[in-house]
């Protein structure tokens, strides 16, 4: 078994682009679910409209890269408003079902043949990251170092995405930290604890929930940009409901209602997933594990994600850093 490769990919995954984009989207979920108690199961839709907003602006309309970013951000904010109006009056389970339905509608429209000219059908869109890479200050080449025998190197284009991504994560965490210390943040947390009490104090609960949905959606949509820019393409099926479920796993793993919870959660999630995948597929290839084949080993790691989510919620719903009293998981 090739342990060097396994450890190399695992260590790289702790800071890699997957972690960056999921961490950004998870910070959004943390604002929705962790702080406000909104069960938004449609976070993948925010990532999708951002990624597609950028892709369609650049490839179909031929506008520059930064216009695409602006359009993506506006699209995410509009989506949050549209999603919020019918649902924010409703109870948690209705909200969950409707947000998941909205996300599915958006995915199905993006992958439909009827709109293939705009969204590219199930193949998605590609070829829109040139404008971003043109800003890349790193000259061509691989950057990194050797950790003992383990090489940890990133190509220059990936490094550029990672640097921007981690700066965004730092910025978002700082914003969340400041906001949640502010009176505004205290109202959000109060809504999570007891909506009626907040309403009786004269606060407009609907408006606060909507602001939370827009803020979390816009931060989450940054994850969609990072996906598009890192892979140079967007495909509709990347933004399925399972993506949202993985985001929830990360938030709960790290600790909901904690500033760094989703970031730590995303890092741990990917480290574990990549380590598990590398070990399993290497073990299958080396003939150590014989009862499954390589594709089944790929599925097996998601079995562990499901099992992990169950065990987390049963034994430690507050995750690693969370506080049990601060999570909106009780009946409302």
């Amino acid at each position, binding site marked *: 078994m090739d342990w060097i490769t396994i450890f190399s990919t695992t260590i790289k995954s702790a800071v890699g682009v997957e972690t960056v984009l999921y961490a950004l989207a998870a910070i959004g979920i943390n604002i929705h679910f962790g702080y406000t108690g909104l*069960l938004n199961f449609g976070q993948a839709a925010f990532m999708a409209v951002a990624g597609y907003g950028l892709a369609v602006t650049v490839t179909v309309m031929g506008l520059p890269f930064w216009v695409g970013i602006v359009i993506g951000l506006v699209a995410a904010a509009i989506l949050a408003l549209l999603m919020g*109006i*019918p*649902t924010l*009056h*409703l*109870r*948690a*389970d*209705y909200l*969950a*079902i*409707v947000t*998941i*339905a*909205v996300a*599915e*509608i958006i995915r*199905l*429209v993006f*992958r*439909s*043949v*009827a709109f293939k000219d705009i969204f590219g059908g199930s193949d998605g869109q590609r070829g829109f990251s040139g404008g971003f890479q043109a800003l890349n200050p790193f000259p061509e080449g691989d950057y990194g170092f050797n950790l003992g025998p383990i090489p940890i190197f990133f190509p220059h284009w990936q490094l550029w995405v990672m640097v921007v991504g981690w700066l965004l994560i730092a910025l978002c965490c700082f914003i969340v930290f400041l906001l949640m210390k502010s009176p505004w943040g205290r109202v959000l947390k109060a809504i999570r604890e007891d909506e009626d009490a907040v309403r009786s104090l004269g606060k407009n609960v609907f408006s606060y929930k909507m602001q939370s949905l827009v803020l979390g959606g816009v931060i989450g949509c940054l994850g969609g940009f990072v996906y598009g820019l890192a892979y140079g393409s967007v495909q509709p099926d990347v933004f399925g409901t*399972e993506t949202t*479920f993985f985001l*929830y*796993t990360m938030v*709960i793993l790290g600790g909901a209602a904690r500033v760094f919870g989703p970031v730590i959660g995303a890092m741990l999630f990917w480290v574990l997933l990549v380590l598990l995948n590398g070990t399993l597929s290497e073990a299958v290839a080396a003939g150590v594990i014989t009862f*499954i084949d390589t*594709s*089944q080993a790929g*599925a*097996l790691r*998601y*079995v562990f*994600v*499901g*099992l*992990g*989510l*169950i*065990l*987390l*919620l*049963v*034994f430690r*719903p507050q995750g690693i850093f969370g506080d049990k009293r601060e999570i*909106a*998981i*009780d*009946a*409302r």
Partner: protein
Amino acid sequence: MRRAVIAFTAFLGGLVFLLVGPAHADPADCQGLKGTLTFQGQPVNGARIAVSTEGGQPVETVTSNAQGAWDVQVEDPGRYRVTLDPASLPQNTEIRGGNNVRTPTVYEGNCSSVLFALQAKGAAGQQQGDEAGGSSSFWTQAAQLTFEGLNLGLIIALAALGLSLIYGTTGLTNFAHGELVTLGAILAYAFNVGFGLHLIPAAVCAVILAGILGYGQDRFFWGQLRRRGTGTVAMMIISIGVALFLRYMYLILFSPQTESYAQYTAQPGIEIGPISAAPKNLVAMGIELLVLVIVGIALLRTRTGKAARAVADNPALAASSGINVDGVIRIIWTVGAAIAALAGIMLGLSQNLKYTMGQDILLLIFAGVTLGGLGTAFGALVGSLVVGLFIQVSTLWVPPELKSVGALAVLIIVLLVRPQGILGRRERIG
């Protein structure tokens, strides 16, 4: 609690044993091309497919079998030309997009799937439209789609009834309900193809086993969680974990391909007035209707049914008036899992089996339940029929790939106007 987790694992372990044999019944070494021709969910028999090398050397010409499947084994990996003879297709079908040649690549030791999507002649999206047919063909099509919508609606209703009852009695929004639907289909497949039982006894066995597993799931897992006082939102997220877990277990144990049962796969449709229907669909609809009526009567007339509705209304009050709430919930889980399994078998019969079939239909089940009003048993029936009909009939105007979009959009609009659903009560939405 630890006991609960161990028991849950053991229950899944049992499942593994049951499924592991039949799932790998066909690991045949394969190097070539294969595909399955279906038209509106029905296999297409006797279509002629010619395979030649890229240079034009003919390799083999085959016809699709009763399951609509065909395959051609080739000696060397490389690019091949696959030609489907349009003249060999049934009269009323044509190839979507019109192109009858595919050029797939065969890799060493792998089978590549070749996709030919079939559609009704002159269907939407084609330029050659059927103005000549005019309104009569529109109404024929509408009648046919209404029939198909009822078929789908009844399947959704079976699954939705269980979901709604479980929600009503325990407050759990079960995201793993789709996986219970898949479970029924896969268990029936295991008995049918794995152990060689005829489909009807296999289906009966699958439904009974699914009921037992549903009982076990509540007895050893959800019931234990309720006893610990786990909140409803926590349970909802746990059910997502269960759904992920089960779905990928199915992928490992079943297969990533679509499969079909050994019997009743290709039935020629019979004409009833303007609609053409395979006899199996008529029988399936009859069974579904019968089960729904029986469950409905049981809810209205039997002591257990009344108790179930009482628990759904107010668990604390029901308990204080002497109803064994846990017992009732356990019966609900057993029945709910069994009828969800039946829905899965029927879905597998009218379409195909796939490990994601439950996931794909889950949102439609939710749409049905929410439309009718969360927690109301009869609301779920009405809502599901509306969803099924809407999905199929909307394809008169909407491209078929977007038919679910319409149903989900209607769900959102109804929630805007009437948040409690069609038969729901105002106070339930909180």
